[in-house]
């Protein structure tokens, strides 16, 4: 761990620059993807990536140069390119950062159980092969796959103000998916995959529930193939955590990103229905809604001590009792807007610059068990596991779909329905939040695939949530 630190420190100290502030962010990442599909081991895939971004501030204007040439000369060239570019754009620059303080301090952050050895590659493949082989033989089961992704990331941030911030993290992404088809229709069920990932060791696979799950997932897939379509019309909607995470992500997370509100993302990811003047005033949801930016849950995907611009991270309420309090805005956005934010300036790697991103964005638990949530619904539907997502560029009009639906009548779970979809408007939807599950319904989830930014970036984000009930939501099914 941090094998490169001494050399980086030495080379950084030897850099020559006329910039008033410069920094180096070195990122070293490795990844392995293992998969067994239809009982056949897919070719294992490994990756190794290492490089650095040099950023220079010249007369209040910043620019960067990213390079994989980590020699002294290579780093010096990159720094000089960043300085030259800062001078080139000076006459055209939107921002004057002369007054923005430089981060400082020295700190190391590690994932939980970072040093715990993981099972060998052969053992991992055996685990996946066992799950794959547990899928029953049924001609309608046409595709299935058990997979495991493991990523290691080490980052060192150094700047000319003396900061040295390092983190070493390990992420695991277990997954299982089954597809059934009758020739006309097809239905899929999954566990983990895009809806689950955590920091840590082997315990992440245990928490995912991958081992021994294949038979149940296959059975649920066949149930869906035989199930009727979801009925259309307004119903109470019980969202389980593996759909809540998507709901939080799209209709709370993205609209609260300060760079969207400041207009940076209007050409690509979009803008926001939230205005800067709404913070401290807008009733975003019902009084049951409590949303936190929480980098302190060790296993959650975006737990860290400092963000990629060097800002110390701490838990903050973004929405308390339904009232909007603060945006997802890092140090630069806070400097630009004058609003208090959080430490969420993040980059996907050494070749992309940090921007405002979601990190861990959670809903705090309420006081009702799952049985109480179901018992409080007269006519409703339970939905779990996201499969489809679409929302407008201001993050207001949305339509989401799930893999699994189950009707609720008079406080009891009833039959399974396929193609469960629902639509709504963010600004109204959260006002319909009628019940929040307690800690027994709370799950720490996350996704490796949040895309945003120009140039584009994909980052890992964490979402932890209890199950939640929303009153009178427009639900509907598929075509056949």
């Amino acid at each position, binding site marked *: 761990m941090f094998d490169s630190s001494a050399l980086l420190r030495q080379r950084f100290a030897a850099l020559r620059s006329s910039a008033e502030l410069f920094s180096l962010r070195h990122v070293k990442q490795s990844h392995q993807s293992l998969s067994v599909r239809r009982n*056949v*081991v897919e*070719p*294992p*895939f*490994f*990756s*190794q990536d290492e*490089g650095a971004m040099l950023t220079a501030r010249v007369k209040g204007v910043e*620019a*960067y*140069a*990213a*390079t*994989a*040439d980590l*020699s002294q000369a*290579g780093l010096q060239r*990159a720094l000089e*390119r960043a300085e030259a*570019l*800062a001078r*080139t*754009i000076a006459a*055209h*620059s*939107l*921002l004057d950062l002369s007054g923005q303080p430089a981060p400082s301090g020295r700190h190391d952050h590690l994932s939980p159980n970072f040093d715990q050895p993981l099972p060998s590659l052969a053992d991992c*493949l055996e685990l996946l092969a066992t799950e794959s082989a547990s899928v029953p033989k049924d001609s309608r089961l*046409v*595709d299935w796959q058990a997979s495991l992704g493991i990523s290691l990331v080490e980052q060192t941030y150094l700047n000319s103000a003396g900061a040295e911030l390092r983190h070493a993290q390990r992420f695991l992404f277990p997954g299982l998916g089954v*597809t*059934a*088809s009758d020739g006309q229709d*097809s239905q899929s069920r999954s566990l983990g995959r895009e809806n689950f990932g955590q920091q840590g060791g082997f315990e992440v696979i245990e928490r995912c529930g991958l081992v021994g799950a294949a038979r149940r997932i296959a059975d649920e897939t066949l149930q869906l193939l035989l199930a009727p379509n979801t009925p259309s019309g307004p119903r109470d909607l019980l969202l389980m955590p593996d759909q809540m995470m998507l709901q939080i992500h799209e209709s709370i997370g993205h609209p609260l990103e300060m760079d969207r509100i*400041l*207009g*940076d993302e*209007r*050409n*690509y990811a979009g*803008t926001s229905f939230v205005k800067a003047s709404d913070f401290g005033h807008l009733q975003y949801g019902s009084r049951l809604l409590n949303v936190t930016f929480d980098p302190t849950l060790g296993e959650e995907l975006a737990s860290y001590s400092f963000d990629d611009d060097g800002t110390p991270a701490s838990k903050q309420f973004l929405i308390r009792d339904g009232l909007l309090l603060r945006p997802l805005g890092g140090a630069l956005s806070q400097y630009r807007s004058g609003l208090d934010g959080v430490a969420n300036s993040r980059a996907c790697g050494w070749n992309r610059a940090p*921007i405002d991103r979601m990190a861990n964005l959670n809903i705090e638990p309420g006081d009702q068990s799952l049985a109480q949530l179901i018992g409080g619904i007269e006519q409703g539907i339970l939905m779990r596991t996201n499969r*489809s*997502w*679409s*929302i*407008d*560029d*201001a993050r207001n009009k949305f*339509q989401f*779909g799930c893999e699994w639906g189950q009707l609720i009548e008079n406080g009891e779970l009833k039959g399974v329905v396929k193609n469960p979809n629902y*639509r709504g408007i963010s600004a109204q939807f959260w006002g319909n939040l009628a019940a929040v599950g307690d800690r027994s319904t709370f799950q720490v989830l996350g996704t490796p695939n949040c*895309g945003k930014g*120009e*140039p584009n970036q*994909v980052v890992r984000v964490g979402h932890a949530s209890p199950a939640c009930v929303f009153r009178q939501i427009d639900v509907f099914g*598929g*075509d*056949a």
Partner: protein
Amino acid sequence: MSATPQQRFEDLAGALRDARQADEQFTLGYSAEHSQFIRFNHARVRQAGEVTQASAHLRLIRDGRQAEQHFTLGNDPQLDRQRLHDALAQLRQTLPLLPVDPYLRLDESPWQSHDLQAQPLPDCAEALSLIEREAGDLDLVGIYAAGPICRGFASSFGAFGWHQANSFNFDWSLFHANGQAVKANYAGQTWDADALVARLRQAREQLDFLGRPAITLKPGSYRAYLAPAAMDEIAGMLCWGGFSAQALATGNSSLQRLYNGDASLSPLVSFDEQVSGSLSPPFSDEGSPRRDLRLIHEGRAQARLVSARSAAEFELQANGADSHESPCALSLAAGHLPSTQILERLGTGLYISNLWYLNYSDLPAARMTGLTRFATFWVEDGRIQAPVGTMRFDDSLYSLLGSQLEDLTSERELILSTSTYGQRSTGSSHLPGALVKALTLTL
């Protein structure tokens, strides 16, 4: 004088050939770019940087087993060779742990391909000055991305491919004070300042229409014209496994009913994978020469995209598809509607410039949902009346490009991908606009 990217790749491939053991085979892919990225907000530079990156993708094969490693390359040939040897060592350790791969199939032909397009790129300061001069008074937001892109491939069977092109992609939106916006793009390989100025002025003129008070439509069914950029979003959805041999064989394709023969599209609809003449390298990531393929002919399914692995698994013929079996240069044949007659033929309905954030609401039924975005207008009697607030549609492809398709435009647009996830994309599409009798709006 430092080595060229091609010389670096050849050096790496040579080192791999030297290190190869008698019973081993390999494929080696290479990807590199030097990119300038300049973001704009309010017609000023919000963020600027340069990225120099290169990487190799090694696949090692022995005794019917295979494993792959992707690794970053620096600027030091000795260090890069060391990384290659490290990758080789890890793969050699891995292969004995694997069972024989029943779907391992290799292209063993010693094909050769060389494609070098080195048109000069504009100077960064010159481009900035031009943009500021022409748009400094506008609320412009977007990104300018430019620089050389390289792709290489070599195999132990003697195949060798090299593709290098300079390109630029300036993608921007102009915002009216009322929040409405128009999107535009200037991309290609030969920079022409006059062409950029013309595009900027055209977008500026469209802003005038956006100043009118926006109207809100009720959910329902509407006549609509989908401009090529909007069609690109629909075509993009079909690239999510629609034509993939694996997805079609396993119930995961949105076009499975079309390929089963249980459904058809309008006879106006003919889709091709048109690699020749596109910006994509003429070889796949698996190391096979790409081929032009007719995917849909007059509404009926034709070829599917078959990777070497799918060919083995589903007993098909591989046809040069990438490993993920997605088109890289999708082309939709032109129709008969002259662009000058679009408003007249639309009559009363929606003129939709762009769509946004599409996804499937029922994948086997090819039913998709998404939203209008940028410059959507309400048209009456062939005249633009007012911009329309964001609306959601939810409709089946078999309706939009099937029973409800009235015509396609006789002119098409070449749309170069603006994607920069991981690296700048070389993908493109070539599409007409579509006039549809009914588009279902739901929210």
